[in-house]
């Protein structure tokens, strides 16, 4: 728990600050930028909010984070001040009860908050939506995701082995932030699909496994590509297959062009994936090898006495979120399973505090 008497700590230099922060468990294992008063004040100039304003209670500790508290962690992550509104938006979205941050922080599953950014803020902040967008090399992607994780560790108390019981974790627990490649998409972007104006910038958080690559260099129509994606989502070890819930799909520009050339809109894409993502009851239950299986997460109408009965992965096409992302070259897409129906739901927030300047 926080100690109000230790709001500011005296350290000799950068090295001592890092050793202290590592010793106290205040890092993600990587070096941090020491959050001096000067750097935190500079960070706070990136947002139009009172620094002492409470933003959200961050589970599992449920400490209430102020704008300043989040700015401190954003400095540590290496953010530019202009990124702070996105970080604050991501914290707010993650703290939404629908996201269930308490569970996401504590689960033995491998999920981590995936941040998807839409709207004009992407170009202003140079958020990578294209080649290698889930990888390294772009400061905004790297540090925005990292700032959310640091806030989850330091303010929320998500400590590996103590409150964070993830069996494996995954690299996205360092940072997991991407922009949708709206410019390469033949369809409406995610935020427009969800009811926002195209000129509104939004942040979406989703409790996501690591991206699963879907290779399809053979298919030259939507049926093949989307069947490959549906199959990747609904493999035998898929958490979604056992707990249903929501899943994300990132379709590459090459695959998206092929699908759109056949005049398939986004709704049809989602419906096709929702139809094809599933498995037979017998396969899922190893044909009774381990006894009778009911699984209350699956729909009640599934005939549990019939090994050939189809078990769908999702209840509705609305549970499949489709974005276009990635570089222009490469017939790959990504299947990104989620945590499950009773676990967590995707949450999207507009970014009204986004300071529309690229000079910060």
């Amino acid at each position, binding site marked *: *728990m926080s100690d109000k008497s230790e709001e500011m700590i005296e*350290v000799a230099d950068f090295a001592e600050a890092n050793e202290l922060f590592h010793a106290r468990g205040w890092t993600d294992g990587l070096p941090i930028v020491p*959050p*001096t008063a000067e750097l935190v004040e500079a960070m706070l100039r990136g947002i139009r909010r009172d620094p002492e304003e409470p933003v959200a209670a961050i589970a599992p500790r449920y400490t209430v984070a102020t704008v300043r508290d989040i700015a*401190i962690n954003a400095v540590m992550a290496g953010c530019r001040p202009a990124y702070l509104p996105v970080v604050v938006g991501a914290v707010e979205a993650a703290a939404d009860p629908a996201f269930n941050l308490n*569970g996401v922080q504590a689960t033995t599953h491998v999920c981590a908050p995936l941040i998807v950014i839409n709207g004009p803020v992407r170009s202003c902040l140079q958020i990578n939506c294209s080649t290698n967008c889930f990888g390294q090399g772009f400061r905004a992607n790297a540090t925005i995701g990292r700032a959310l994780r640091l806030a989850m560790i*330091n303010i929320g108390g998500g400590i590996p082995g103590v409150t964070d019981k993830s069996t494996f974790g995954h690299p996205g627990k360092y940072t997991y932030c991407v922009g949708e490649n709206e410019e390469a998409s033949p369809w409406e972007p995610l935020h427009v699909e969800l009811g926002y104006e195209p000129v509104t910038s939004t942040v979406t958080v989703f409790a996501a496994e690591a991206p699963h690559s879907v290779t399809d260099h053979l298919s030259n129509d939507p049926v093949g590509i989307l069947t490959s994606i549906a199959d990747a989502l609904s493999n035998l070890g898929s958490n979604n297959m056992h707990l249903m819930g929501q899943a994300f799909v990132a379709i590459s520009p090459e695959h998206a062009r092929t699908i759109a050339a056949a005049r398939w809109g986004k709704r049809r894409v989602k419906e096709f994936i929702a139809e094809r993502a599933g498995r037979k009851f017998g396969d899922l239950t190893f044909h009774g090898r381990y006894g009778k299986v009911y699984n209350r997460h699956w729909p009640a109408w599934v005939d549990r006495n019939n090994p050939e009965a189809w078990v769908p992965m999702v209840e509705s096409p609305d549970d499949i979120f489709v974005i276009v992302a990635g570089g222009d070259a490469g017939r790959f897409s990504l299947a990104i399973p989620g945590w499950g129906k*009773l676990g*967590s739901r995707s949450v999207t927030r507009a970014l009204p505090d986004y300071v529309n300047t690229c000079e910060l």
Partner: protein
Amino acid sequence: MKVYAPVGRQAAAGFRAAPALATLAGKRVLLLDNGKWNGGRLLRHLGEIMEFEVPAVDVRIERKPFFSRAADFELVDRLAKGVDAVVTAIGD
């Protein structure tokens, strides 16, 4: 140089744990199932053992609606007023 501690500045609310019971005999014990299938099985088995071995113990089971979410305040209040001990289990 001075640096901020990054842990938030909300003061921790103090609380004291309830004193441990000297015995379960004659007590009301709630087994709180968190909704995970194996956790519930473990608790039901524990309940059977308690009823067999502990004199006059009153055992009942309740289930939390979602395994990964904290029990809501209404449930916690009800538990605090109506029972002497609560046992939970986490079972995947």
